[in-house]
Each structure stands twice: as structure tokens, then as C-alpha cells.
């Protein structure tokens, strides 16, 4: 009898926490779209801010949309070509060194927890050291550093689930460790790797603090890596701090745009990864 009560109690508790999360998520999306939808227009998407934009005059946030896309695609690309091989190295080459592996994982978890503003400050001092100005390049470097531990650990968690027998099989066929990594282990975990890349992309496009000092902010769309770039999170921040109600509403419209971009990327890459998922053993 007591067991039954316990069962019902904990099931109720789990249901409740699920509902709370769903409710909060729903509330966020609802408030973004409710406040933002009125300002969301074609003009908002297709134009840069014109004179007086921040006082409620015409123009849009194309600068921030393009800036965010350049920045996060660039940083995600960099983090992928560095992070995926690192995760493969950990799970194919270091598989025997359990202690080393656990230490690396521990370190990565630690730097995962470092707040992004610290990355921003670090990126800033790196810029001074390298002698580069506030620019798209500096932003990409900083955001790459910021998402790298996320990328590596997310890929690592996926690759850890790849069965040991598969590794043994590939090696016993006479493949080198590199061939095993890229042709077998990576293919086995491909859809999971795509999810890891997405997760990193989401962090890259959504972060404001790391780009504040490094990528800067501008009303124009960058045409080279050495120009500063605007980003959606910063554009939300600037618009929201305006005293003009229309500009504040545009902040919510920008937030809606950011949410939609993440949704589009997420859905399309999942469809892409399905193609590789079918070969999974």
C-alpha cells in the first residue's frame, strides 16, 4: 500500500516538474511573439537601421541578423573542425588512458562553466595582444573559444556511447586509428554529432556577453572579417534599454527572429542527419 502511494507521489512530482518547464517555455515564446509580432515586418527583416532608428523611426535589424549568422556560422565551423577531431581522439586514441581521459573531461566541464563575459574579457585582451580591433574576426575567435568545450564534451558524450565492439571490429580489419575514427566511429555517431554542432550553434548565436567587447556593434553589415559586426542578442539588449516603447517592442521582434533562426537550423539539420542515421548499427 505504502509503495503504491510512493509511486503515485513521485509520478505526480515528475509530471508537475515537466509541466512547470513546459509552462515556462510556453510563456517565454508567448511573450516574445505577443510583444514582438506587432513590430515584426518585412522592413524589420530586410533593412538596416536608418537614421533615428533607435528613436522609433524606420529601418530594421538586418545588420544584426547578418552579423549573428556570419559570427555564429564562422565560430561553429571553427569549433567543429577543432572539436570533432579532439572528441574522436579522446574516444579512439585515449580509450585506454582512463585517468587521462577523466582528467580532460573534468577540465572541459570546468571551462564549460566559465561565464561568457569572462571569455569576452579574455578575447579582448587577446585582441590587444594580437593588435586587432573590434571586428568579426575577433568575435569569431572569442565565440569559438567559448563554444569549444561545449562542442567537445557534447561530441564526447555521443562518441562514448559508440560500442567498444565496433572499435575492435574496425581495428581488426586492419584500419588505422585515423581511418577508424573518421570512417567508422564518426559515421556511427553522425546524427549525435549534428546535434552537438547544433547545440554549439545555439550557444554561439544566443550569447551577448562574449561579443560585447570583441565583435562590437554597428549599423552596417560587415563586408570583411576586419569590420565590426552587430549581433541579435546585443541588438535586443540595446533596443530593450531604449525608453521608446516602439523600440522596446522591436527588441521582442528581434528575439522572435533569433528564435525562428534557431528553429530553422535545428529542423533542417535534423532532416539532414536522418540520412546518415539509417546506417547506424
Amino acid at each position, binding site marked *: 500500500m505504502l509503495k503504491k502511494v510512493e509511486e503515485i507521489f513521485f509520478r505526480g512530482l515528475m509530471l508537475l516538474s515537466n509541466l512547470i518547464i513546459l509552462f515556462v517555455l510556453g510563456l517565454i515564446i508567448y511573450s516574445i511573439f505577443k510583444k514582438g509580432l506587432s513590430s515584426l515586418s518585412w522592413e524589420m527583416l530586410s533593412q538596416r537601421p536608418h537614421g533615428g532608428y533607435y528613436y522609433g523611426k524606420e529601418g530594421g535589424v538586418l545588420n544584426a541578423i547578418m552579423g549573428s549568422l556570419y559570427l555564429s556560422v564562422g565560430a561553429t565551423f571553427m569549433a567543429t573542425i577543432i572539436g570533432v577531431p579532439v572528441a574522436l581522439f579522446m574516444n579512439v586514441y585515449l580509450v*585506454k588512458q582512463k585517468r587521462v581521459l577523466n582528467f580532460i573531461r573534468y577540465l572541459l566541464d570546468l571551462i564549460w562553466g566559465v561565464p561568457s563575459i569572462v571569455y569576452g574579457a579574455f578575447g579582448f585582451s587577446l585582441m590587444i595582444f594580437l593588435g586587432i580591433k573590434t571586428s568579426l574576426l575577433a568575435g569569431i575567435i572569442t565565440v569559438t573559444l567559448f563554444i569549444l568545450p561545449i562542442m567537445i564534451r557534447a561530441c564526447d558524450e555521443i562518441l562514448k556511447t559508440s560500442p567498444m*565492439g565496433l572499435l*575492435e571490429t574496425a581495428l581488426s*580489419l586492419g584500419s588505422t586509428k585515423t581511418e577508424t575514427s573518421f570512417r567508422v566511429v564518426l*559515421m556511427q555517431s553522425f546524427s549525435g554529432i549534428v546535434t552537438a554542432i547544433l547545440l554549439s550553434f545555439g550557444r554561439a548565436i544566443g550569447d551577448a556577453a562574449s561579443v560585447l567587447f570583441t565583435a562590437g556593434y554597428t549599423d552596417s553589415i560587415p563586408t570583411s572579417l576586419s569590420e565590426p559586426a552587430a549581433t541579435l542578442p546585443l541588438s535586443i539588449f540595446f533596443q530593450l534599454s531604449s525608453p521608446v516603447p516602439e523600440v522596446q517592442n522591436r527588441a521582442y521582434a528581434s528575439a522572435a527572429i533569433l528564435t525562428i533562426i534557431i528553429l530553422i537550423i535545428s529542423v533542417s539539420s535534423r532532416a539532414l542527419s536522418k540520412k546518415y542515421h539509417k*546506417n547506424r548499427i
Partner: protein
Amino acid sequence: MDNTKIKVDNLNLYIGKQHILKDINIEIPENKLTVILGPSGCGKTTLLKCMNRLTDLYPDVKINGSIFIDNEDVLHTNTDVTEIRKKMGLLSQRPFPLPMNIYNNVAYGLKISGRRNKKALNSRVENYLKIVSLWDEVKDRLHEPASKLSIGQQQRLCLARGLAVDPEIILADEPTSALDPISSEAIEKKFVELKQQYTIVMVTHILRQARRIADHVIFMYMGEVIEQGPAKEIFENPKMERTKKYLQGAFN
């Protein structure tokens, strides 16, 4: 006297402080089917994995002694592991097809050794799938994922894949333990056919299976080799007390 293909000399293996393999000295004859027999947990699989150095992958493993294959010491640090592994096909307890289609599973080993001629690949894939009697079942769906096959078909595919790289030795670790009786029989039959050309080392704890197909038997118990010799001698006239007991079904 048969030629010795694999010779294990004073092999000791420790995992951490545990002594897993104790003073193993065995000789495995060429082009014969050798069965390593013994109850679960006696170190059979570990011994097999030493032969193609998959033990390299496990943490805290310490090995001393030597394993000679054609007079080359597998365990020597200067030995090219990749080359050694190409000499041996491995069939594991559970089939592990590669995460790709049926065709590429067989062609994988060939492709990584640099053979890319499409026609030659096609004919080799067909040939090896025929050897394991899988061709008729899969010829119309070569480009489907290997994971769609039944587990018995997967194990035969893994055998074809292993044979396609021209090994001299087949290492099989309880290759029928996950299979149904019909698929098991198919694998056993293949082994009997294949032993003309290959040296086969099969690990099993199934006594009846060993009786059916073994030419040479190595009986292991608790990390030690208790007795080894031609199958007939071991089964009909075991010398050691523990072998007798095992054959009568006292363990397990």
C-alpha cells in the same frame, strides 16, 4: 606433424592486480580448426584478443611473454599492429556490422588497403558474399544498411568482411552465441569448409560445438591452460582431472 601457425610463449596478463592469464604456452596448428574451450570467465576471450592486440585498447592491462605468428612476435613493441591485424579476421560474440551499407561492409577492408577499382571490388564483394552463402539473400539490396539484416545474416556478413581482406587466420569469439540454431549451424559449416585455407581459432564454452567441429583443443580453466592436443585425444582420453570433470559437465 602439423605446422605451427601461432605459438604462445609464457604469456602472462594482468588487469590491475588481477592475474588473468597464467603462464600460457600453446601451439596452434596451421589450417586446422582449434577450439579454446573452457567455462565462462576463464580468460579465453582475453587470450584471443591478445593475438591481434585488441588488448591494447583496455586500461590497466599488463602483458609479458610472446605470441609468435609465422615467427614474428605480435606483442613486440616494434611490430606493426595494423599489418598484424590484417592477417587475422575477427568474428565477435555479437555481430558488429559497420555503420554503412551491405556492399561497403564487405568492401571496407579492401578500400582502406587502397583497392578502388570498381569492377574488381564488385566481383570480390560478390565472391565473398557467396562464400558465406549470403549473396542470394542480399544481392538485390546491397545498398541497404547492414543493420537491417537479421542477426544471423549480420554474423555471416561480418565473416565475409573479415575474409575479404585476405587473412591467414580467423579468430572467432563465441561466434554463435547470439545466433539461433540454424544460423549457428551455418557458421559452423562454413568454418569446417574454411579450415582448408585458413587457420581458425574459435573460443567457445559449448562442449557439443567443440566436439562437432574441433581438430585441436585447448582446455582452459581459471586463466590456465590445463590440457591441449588433438581433439580426439582430449575428448576420448583426457589426462587431467579437471578436463575430465569439465567434459562430464561438472562445471558450468
